[in-house]
């Protein structure tokens, strides 16, 4: 396994100290790490899944628009972060876990761009919404 860029390594170390669920993805959209709060939210530990290719993420979690979403919430924050290299936030998304549990969430994603201007991946943060 090739070593991750040091910026991604530092991002992983930081997420280990946060109480917010965070997923790190590489430039291909592969999930390369998620922290303990994300494990709790997703219902599965990172040690069990390891890295998850983009096409396999649907087996773990499914994101869909919340029926009450506003027009401004269109677009997947992760895709915007990786493809347009800008931060994005979705106020109303539904997250369905592999055990069928549904959660109302907000999602923030931002690209990780190194000092050489190279896109290294993205950080995706999940915010659970208690009510409608």
């Amino acid at each position: 396994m090739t070593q991750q860029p040091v910026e991604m390594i530092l991002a992983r170390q930081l997420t280990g100290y946060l109480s917010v669920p965070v997923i790190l993805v590489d430039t291909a959209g592969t999930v390369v790490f998620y922290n303990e709060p994300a494990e709790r939210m997703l219902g599965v530990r990172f040690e069990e899944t390891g890295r998850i290719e983009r096409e396999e993420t649907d087996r773990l979690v499914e994101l869909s628009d919340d029926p009450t979403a506003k027009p401004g919430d269109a677009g997947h924050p992760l895709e915007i972060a990786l493809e347009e290299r800008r931060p994005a936030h979705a106020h109303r998304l539904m997250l369905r876990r592999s055990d069928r549990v549904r959660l109302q969430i907000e999602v923030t994603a931002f690209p990780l761009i190194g000092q050489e201007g190279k896109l290294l991946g993205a950080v995706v943060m999940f915010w659970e919404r208690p009510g409608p």
Partner: protein
Amino acid sequence: MNVTLYGVRGSLATPGPLTARYGGNTSCVGLTGADGSVVVLDAGTGIRPLALELPKGLTRVDVLLTHLHMDHILGLGFFGPLYDPRMEVHIWGPASATLSLEGRLRRYLSPPLFPVMLRDVPCRLELHHVVRGPVPIGGFLVTAGRVCHPGPTVGYRIETGTASLAYLPDHEPALGARRFPLEPEWTSGFDLARGVDLLLHDAQYTREEYPRHVGWGHSTIHDALAFARLAGVKHLVPFHHDPGREDAALEAAVETAVRDVHPEFSVTPAAEGARFELG
């Protein structure tokens, strides 16, 4: 590849009788290839004595900077070849997100910090931003990689057909890790150090000292040993000794770490004047 250590002290030059055995000059290492090409790693105060030993008739020298903290560039203004119009000097180092390498070096090599302007040195000077590589430099193949240390900082892997060296003098791969080392994929500097014949690695602190210096960009001697084991190196040279570590204390600290870790590779604390022949 011949490797000679001219400066092994971290942070601040510490001359004097209490550091005479391991030396007080700051980071500088000289490499000589089979074809006679010379590469200098960092420009700490050790670069002045290095320059005195350069072969007569040498026309090109490459200086590879890991970063621009003062202990790694303080000797640059006193590097003899800069003032020799027959010499071609190439300086490689990291840019920042907003300043070129030249712009960053000029902050030191200009008044009021230094009387001679970088643009006025008489040698043929070329500055290069490091790229990941590998890049051929003389008889060496050089790979640079960003490593965990405050500010833009790289480590180097230098190879010939028969030998390999990794140079990570300022490196804190354990920063933020709840256990260290993590897997190779998540360990800063791993790709640079993987399987090298000789690893020169930051070993500034003892385990007792480290909690007061977390985030300063340096490793414990124990972590240097753990990193070397993870990378599968053949020989570790703990480097960048703390300026407060006198000779006897340095030997005791390394001996303690070796006793605790039981490395399956050689460990030789960096000492000024030490030479290693690789390949």
